[in-house]
């Protein structure tokens, strides 16, 4: 089969790989029909995530058709069209039965601090991902769902991570009616978090980025006010001015490990890997939120330490909330919002790229070329 393969930092290619076998009675093998490149895949691509091995296939956002099932699979059959959440999880451990699917204790031998994620290094379990023609899907009775007939493929694909994560991030903000919500980052997760904040009753939503084309999307897609932080000497002061010097009630970090805005922080983290991630957006979030407010962290960071301004968070009495999203837990409500016309997830898809051209897709997304927001990968195209 054809599959994207990591060859070292900034290098990927498509190779012939052996078809994934059934390795556990509750496995399924899924023929991938659509996959996506996620902003967090870029952390792997840039060599930031420890134990990212040459030969691994990335891709934790994918949908497809069931090709084969293991002997204990009860809920899926060959030919089913399925969407697969980015979390690999068992459904039966202490964490799964409490809804913390992203924190499963039974699927990641490499680390206890993170659950299993498809195609996301051995630190997240060593599973090959879906930027491929076929993928092994463990716990087929737990993770995947049959895609409802009314749901379009690209909308289903966005539910596997980006939409579910943005929506979850807004929930972690514990938004109350009329709250002012600031979202750092106008990538897919930030756009969905901004859009979701309105669903939860925000009175004002502000999105901050430095890429003008993404801020334009935040205005049109997410109905948000926008600030380009490159135009201001100090974006924190601007947020204080914008909130009558109180600070925002809720701030969502939808940037994560490769945040821009401070050369030293970015370079020490993203280029020289001396931090788990560049904490610029997170520090701005801590400083922009009001005392007693809530910071929701959806941006992904590596397991190493980062220079976070924890003293400010403590002295301001902040609530910091964060987690990888338990994607499938969000789906029933997201389906309602999509059916009601409140959300149209594939509005953020900007590029559709054949699997064979995935190296160009990674470079374009990484370098922010061609107004790229969300690239979708099409195997067999």
């Amino acid at each position, binding site marked *: 089969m054809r599959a994207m393969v990591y060859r070292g930092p900034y290098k990927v290619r498509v190779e012939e790989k052996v078809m994934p076998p059934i390795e556990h009675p509750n496995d399924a093998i899924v023929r991938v029909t659509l996959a996506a490149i996620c902003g967090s895949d870029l952390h792997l691509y840039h060599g930031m995530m420890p134990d990212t091995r040459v030969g691994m296939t990335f891709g934790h956002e994918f949908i497809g058709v069931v090709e084969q099932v293991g002997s204990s699979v009860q809920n899926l059959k060959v030919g089913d069209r399925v969407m697969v959440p980015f979390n690999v999880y068992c459904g039966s451990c202490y964490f799964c039965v409490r809804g913390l699917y992203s924190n499963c204790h039974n699927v990641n031998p490499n680390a206890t601090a993170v659950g299993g994620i498809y195609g996301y290094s051995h630190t997240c379990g060593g599973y090959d991902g879906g930027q491929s023609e076929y993928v092994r899907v463990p*716990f087929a009775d737990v993770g995947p769902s049959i895609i409802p007939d009314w749901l379009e493929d690209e909308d289903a694909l966005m539910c596997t991570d980006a939409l579910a994560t943005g929506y979850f991030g807004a929930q972690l903000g514990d938004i109350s009616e*009329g709250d002012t919500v600031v979202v750092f980052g106008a990538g897919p997760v930030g756009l969905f978090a901004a859009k979701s904040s309105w669903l939860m009753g925000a009175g004002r939503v502000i999105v901050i980025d430095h890429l003008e084309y993404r801020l334009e999307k935040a205005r049109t897609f997410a109905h948000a006010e926008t600030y380009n932080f*490159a135009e201001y000497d100090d974006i924190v002061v601007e947020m204080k001015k914008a909130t009558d010097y109180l600070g925002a009630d809720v701030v969502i970090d939808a940037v994560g490990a490769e945040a821009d805005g401070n050369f030293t922080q970015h*370079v020490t983290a993203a280029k020289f*890997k001396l931090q788990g991630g560049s904490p610029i957006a997170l520090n701005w979030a801590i400083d922009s939120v009001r005392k007693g407010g809530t910071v929701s962290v959806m941006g992904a960071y590596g397991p190493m330490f980062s220079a976070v301004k924890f003293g400010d968070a403590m002295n301001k009495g902040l609530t910091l909330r964060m987690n990888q999203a338990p994607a499938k837990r969000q789906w029933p409500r997201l389906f309602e919002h999509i059916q009601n016309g409140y959300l149209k997830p594939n509005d953020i898809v900007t590029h559709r790229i054949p699997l064979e051209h995935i190296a160009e897709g990674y470079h374009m997304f990484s370098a922010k070329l061609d107004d790229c927001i969300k690239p979708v990968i099409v195997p067999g195209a």
Partner: protein
Amino acid sequence: MPYTANHPPRAESNDELRARIPGWGADLDPKDRPSVPRERFDPSATGAHWDFPERQEEKWPRERSIEHKFLTPVFGTSSPPHGLSGVLRKFAYAKYSEGRAAHWLILLGADRVDAIESHLRSFATTRPDNPITETGVLSEFSRGGISSRFGKKRVDLNHQWIDPILIAGPWIAAVGAVVLGVRAIAKR
């Protein structure tokens, strides 16, 4: 507004927001939010029909965190450890917990060793690594490399110049080392 007990006044009322934003307030009640409360005990919700999953076959000694009691019943099988990078990875897992910086720094070092080993190994195959095609850098020409960068207020341009050095630097250094080595041998 002076510092009083009041929240800054809102620019738009609920009705105005409802008229402007599709679905505004649909999840206003926390009970409608699927992850509120974040922990909700419900074993029947997941689809699992086991108390503890069957164990997947361990086809090679699978490296695992020493913070785990045992090898998890299910695990990924991508890219088994090999070569010097494999030795380093096994050492990092066997010796240091996730709480130790040494664990992660050794794994990051092993990643760089893995890349070098794999590049060298590729030269003994019919498909050696090609930094031009594998970096996708040709999309600079097809996807507006210049127009996407210049005339924009992008702050990432202040560090993008480092990328070619990080990517091409080791290749240039390796070629230089080979040239110097060959010359030194030729002079003998």
